[in-house]
């Protein structure tokens, strides 16, 4: 079966890619296996090690979604502080946007006829 996708500019063959990925995973597995195994299930090793301190409660360890990408939104503060308030949740504003776009597109179409 032919699996190559010709985009007209290049080719993309997912099967070859997948086989290559599988070979790499196999190699990784072989390397990993040849290491020294000192891991024992159910022993002290399964517990998290925090420099000898007591482990905090589970909820305190997990980083929730709200904390991720804080730096990104902080860095683009100027953009987000304008963009987010536009989503007002007010039905009147939604309709205003629709009619605005309608008029704008109409104008564009008439100008660039």
């Amino acid at each position, binding site marked *: 079966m032919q699996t190559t996708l010709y985009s007209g500019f290049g080719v993309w063959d997912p099967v070859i890619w997948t086989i290559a990925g599988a070979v790499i995973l196999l190699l990784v597995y072989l390397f990993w296996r040849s290491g020294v195994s000192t891991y024992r299930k159910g022993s002290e090793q399964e517990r998290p090690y925090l420099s000898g301190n007591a482990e905090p409660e589970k909820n305190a360890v997990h980083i929730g979604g709200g904390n991720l990408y804080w730096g990104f939104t902080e860095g683009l503060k100027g953009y987000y502080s304008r963009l*987010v308030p536009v989503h*007002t*949740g007010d*039905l*009147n504003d939604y*309709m205003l946007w629709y*009619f605005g776009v309608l008029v704008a597109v109409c104008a564009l179409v008439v100008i660039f006829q």
Partner: protein
Amino acid sequence: MLTQLPYLAVVLIAGIGIATILLKKNLIKMIMGLGVLTGSANLFLVTLGYRDGGIAPIYTSAPEGVMVLSTVQAMTVTNIVIGFATTALLLAFAIMLYRKYGSVETGDIRRLRE
């Protein structure tokens, strides 16, 4: 000029409907604006289909004259029914929102935002 009058009425009524939807904050009034807009669409369709001196295409003892294909009238009837259904649904939503939020002002119906 006189034949253009209904189209002017369509624009006027549609304008009233759109203005109501954009300017009124009360949900019931917005739904009313929607009803007005539906009305203007119906008027527009019926006006399009009007042919002066035409008769309905009912062949039983039909008088002399040009028969008019009544597609537009059928469309209008369909749109009236659809308009009725949407208005009923929207009003039902408004009732439910009033029960849950205690208000039908669009300024208060914005717990989903940002």
